[in-house]
């Protein structure tokens, strides 16, 4: 049980995919213009990550190691399609905003990283704990980026006016703002944890 809690917390802070491992950055920068986008994108990724980790963990003794990567990709693509169709059907406005970044979950490094690096070697409960931790770690990270950009860019918090029109820095809504906020937040996380990230986990 203690091991499960540890696996879960690992993704939330110690190996946080966005701020500590600096992986799966494309969607974290692209969709984060408003708070609800961050939450929606995070939950979509958490779903795909958890479901594919469950399947990869269950199938870990059946899949031959030579063809494991294509197998994982098919599993991930299946769940991505489910999320894609679900969001298209029930949340059309959100689907419009998130655009191609929902189908692009299939090539999000976080999912393959956890499938290959954790779920393929761990028992089912541990794989679930790890996937949930990673997914929620990603969710809080990109929600934080979204909120900073939303407050500075349009002066609102989840659509509610909080700054009284004091901040309307258009640059925060444009691509450069995403890079700047991301850089500064990674720097702040480095200061808090006192263990700077030296390199990213992806290629």
């Amino acid at each position, binding site marked *: 049980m203690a091991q499960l809690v540890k696996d879960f917390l690992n993704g939330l802070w110690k190996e946080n995919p966005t701020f500590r491992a600096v992986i799966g950055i494309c969607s974290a920068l692209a969709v984060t213009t408003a708070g609800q986008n961050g939450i929606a994108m995070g939950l979509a990724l958490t779903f795909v990550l958890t479901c594919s980790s469950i399947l990869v963990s269950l199938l870990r003794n059946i899949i031959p190691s030579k063809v494991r990567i294509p197998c994982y990709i098919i599993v991930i693509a299946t769940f991505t399609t489910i999320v894609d*169709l679900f969001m298209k059907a029930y949340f059309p406005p959100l689907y419009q905003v998130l655009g191609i970044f929902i189908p692009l979950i299939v090539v999000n490094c976080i999912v393959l990283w956890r499938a290959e690096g954790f779920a393929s070697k761990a028992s089912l409960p541990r794989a679930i704990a790890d996937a949930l931790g990673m997914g929620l770690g990603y969710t809080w990270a990109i929600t934080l980026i979204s909120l900073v950009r939303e407050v500075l860019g349009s002066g609102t918090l989840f659509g509610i006016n909080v700054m009284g029109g004091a901040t309307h820095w258009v640059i925060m809504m444009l691509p450069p703002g995403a890079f700047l906020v991301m850089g500064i937040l990674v720097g702040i996380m*480095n200061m808090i944890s006192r263990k700077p990230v030296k390199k990213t986990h992806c*290629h």
Partner: protein
Amino acid sequence: MLKDLFFIIVSTVLVNNFVFSRFLGHCPFLGVSNKTETAVGMGMATTFVLTMTAVAAYFIQSFILEPFGLTPFLQIVSFILVIASLVQLVEMAVLKISPALYNAFGIYLPLITTNCIVMGVALLIPQKGYNLIESTIFGLGAGLGFTLALVLMSGIREELEFSDVPEALKGPAIVFITAGLLAMIFLGFTGLAPL
């Protein structure tokens, strides 16, 4: 016709640069932009695969997915499979035809499968409704834009090695901030192409 193709190139390389404005392909952008030499190799390999993918995506979309009404539920699976096997094929072909070329960028090829710029181009082509030639040019332009971003960044990063960066910002953080400044420069191209 030729004018449209020119606009597609300008749009994908400068105005809507895939790295700085569409946010695609950041993993290699952060990972292999340490040295200009590797950046050029990675850029060339990606451009090659992107052009091939664009052609393949066009054919699959208009001759298989569209006529049989499979787009909504098989698009993602079929595109990712085609990209993965295409990369594998390119790797084998390059190794056979030109070992020198393989030594130049062969090691980057396996990494390209999970590069979201490739999947992004495949998904954007049906959305934009491009024909075969336009799709090819779109893929080529995406690759050139990616190469430009990677080479620019690697040049700056080689200089950053010797500069005095605050302790907390060392590593990816300063790369993001530099990329933000570069993205601001690329905003200057807005309006250059009417697309």
